[in-house]
């Protein structure tokens, strides 16, 4: 008797079950849409360590002095050898774990950007982009320069 009662009751509740099922599907749909927008908002937050990263690149020792001294040689005497090898090594150590990165080091003359040294790019994906005012070795005419270092992608 009890068994029969349960069996009949189950079919009689089908409307209720169907209603609950449709309700769950509906709300899953609603929450999926909301969840997507939450995820995108969080992922838009930029990486905040750019300045510190760039400063540590510039402080990296080279054969003679630090990378900053080598940048001066490139800037003043077009001698790119030291800065090229030092930056290529540093940037690939950080961003080039999967593929070899390309990068550009330039400086500003007023509002114009001039290229100092670069590694040409194949695949574009912005990995690093920062400007920084740095001092130059002493010269009565020019004391500092605004540098721009970018890692625009992979080779």
């Amino acid at each position, binding site marked *: *008797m009890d068994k*029969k*009662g*349960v069996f*009949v*009751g*189950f079919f*009689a*509740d089908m*409307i*209720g*079950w169907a*209603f*609950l099922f449709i*309700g*769950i599907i*509906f*709300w899953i749909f*609603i*929450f999926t849409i*909301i969840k997507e927008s*939450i995820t995108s*908002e*969080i992922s*838009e*937050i*930029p990486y*905040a*360590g*750019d*300045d*510190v990263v760039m*400063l540590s690149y*510039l*402080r990296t020792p080279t054969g*003679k*002095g630090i990378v*900053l*001294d080598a940048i*001066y*040689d490139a800037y*003043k005497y077009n001698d790119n050898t030291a800065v090229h090898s030092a930056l290529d090594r540093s940037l690939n150590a950080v961003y080039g774990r999967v593929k070899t990165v390309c990068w550009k080091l330039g400086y500003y003359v007023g509002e114009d950007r001039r290229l100092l040294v670069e590694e040409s790019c194949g695949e574009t994906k912005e990995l690093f982009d920062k400007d*920084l*005012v*740095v*001092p*130059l*070795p*002493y*010269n*009565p005419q020019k*004391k*500092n320069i605004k540098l721009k270092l970018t890692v625009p992608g992979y080779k």
Partner: protein
Amino acid sequence: MIFKKQKKGMILIFTLGLLFCFVIMPLLFVRLESKRVQFERKIGDMQFNAIDTYQEADGVLFYIDESARYAAHQAIFDLGLKGGHTEPCEEYQGYALWVNGYEECYPEPKKALPVFVESYFNEYLAAYPSTLSNDYDFLVKQENKLNIIGVAAINLNFENDNETYSSKYSIKPSFKAVIDYNINDYDVLKQVSKDMVNYVRDCEAEKALSLCVSEAKAIANGRIRANGMEFVAESECRAITLKGESRIYGFCAKSNKEVIAYESVQGRTEFFPVVIKFAIKFPRTITAAT
């Protein structure tokens, strides 16, 4: 009994469905939406604002540190060319006279160096795009390497305002420039100069002054080599060779340490060895005078 049970079950699941669809889930939805309004400014926005302020300060501190290093390099280079003096007691053909007959005027490089450093360092601070205080006290300390310490008197203040947050960061921009150089080289040269004067005084009784000076210089050269220096041609000190006019001889001691500095004759900034330029006017000995 069967009917009764069926009705009860139907009411239970239907009521649960209604409750779920029209009460529980809408409440959750409203709750989530209200949370979303709170996250309009992005998660961690305030913290990133604080980090940005810190990073802005770090960029300026880097500029100050490296400016101090370059100023120190230039100061060491120029101090050598000035014979360790800011203003020599007596000058002859661009040489600082350390010994002028019976008068001695040896340099005090630990006092003179900060004067040079401060002058160049202030030029760097003045060239920075924003205003930086140049109120510093300088200290020179020789350890394994030369330490030039700048103690800032005034804090650097940074403020980063956006629509909702404001971060303030205040720091004393003191610095320590560590240069691979030994300022005690001047003490070595001072002692060597005294010895050269004594040697020439004794030697001149028997030989010509120029010969005695050459011998004294050769002996002195052996001693200063132990300290990583050697006497070289005066042209390396951007000076003319003094041929003993008025008993004055010039010396150019070149160190094996290099600094990155601006050299005004060539108009180039690159690594140059530190050279110390000085002259001695050998006093007349009693024998020579009579």
